[in-house]
């Protein structure tokens, strides 16, 4: 069965996750093999997901950890009856 571009677009996410059933996967793959438009859409989506998953996208602000642990220290000290050993 031949499927259209718009039909292929609805399966991009499942294609990237590897969750398309084998029959549909074969149809999508066949379409991608000779459709440069859909191939470029798929490649760009995959590329964007790789970029957004990179740790560098959400860099912690300077001093974030120090401020966080100082606030935790204060809180833990207030709540805990067993103060941590200072070593």
């Amino acid at each position: 069965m031949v499927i259209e571009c718009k039909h292929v677009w609805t399966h991009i996410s499942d294609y990237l996750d590897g969750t398309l059933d084998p029959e549909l996967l074969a149809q999508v793959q066949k379409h991608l093999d000779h459709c440069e438009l859909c191939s470029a859409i798929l490649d760009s989506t995959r590329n964007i997901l790789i970029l957004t998953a990179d740790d560098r996208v959400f860099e912690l602000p300077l001093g974030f950890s120090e401020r966080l642990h100082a606030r935790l220290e204060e809180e833990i000290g207030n709540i805990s009856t067993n103060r941590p050993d200072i070593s």
Partner: protein
Amino acid sequence: MPGSAELRNEQHLIASILAGETHLFHELIRPYERSVFAMALSFLHNEADAEDAAQEAFLKAFRNLASFRGEARFGTWLISITLNEARSRIRRSKVMPTDSLDEDPEAPGHISPALLRDWREVPLQALERQEVRLMLQEAIAALPQNYREVFLLRDVEELSTNEAAELLQISVGALKVRLHRSRIMLQKNLAPRLTQIGPKRRWFQWS
């Protein structure tokens, strides 16, 4: 996300903290600082508010650690606390747009990707440029809230489909629909702009 050795270590840390060695909480949360901040920033749109929300989420995790039963992974539990903290801050704020909250995310409607003839990979080195990092952050933040939540849990925090659906209390089917749409929206928003950062590419005009 941590491997099985780290998970065993986590369970051990949690037991020790609950037994009184509270200083170990610092060690427990270190691997999750970035995840929690990324969630908070994607909802609150500025670093100062995101940092405050992230701190609050960690404090709530500490106060409620005894209620963590280990059915979920600690990281997933922590992310759900962060999500609740971010959601409640959005609700409290009159300034924040309520964007898609009234929309039915499962309503039929086709979202088309950006159309292009060829795509040359944007390398990871591009992330060294602050403008690229900001472009990605802003595109995620601009997603409707229902889609943004799903996208962050699955594609940034790397939760499984089942973990994310359970956390958001939606069906796996609904989760997949939202994830698909969020990815296509990001492609539509980002693909044309990402092509500007590298060599020129040829665009196909769809009419």
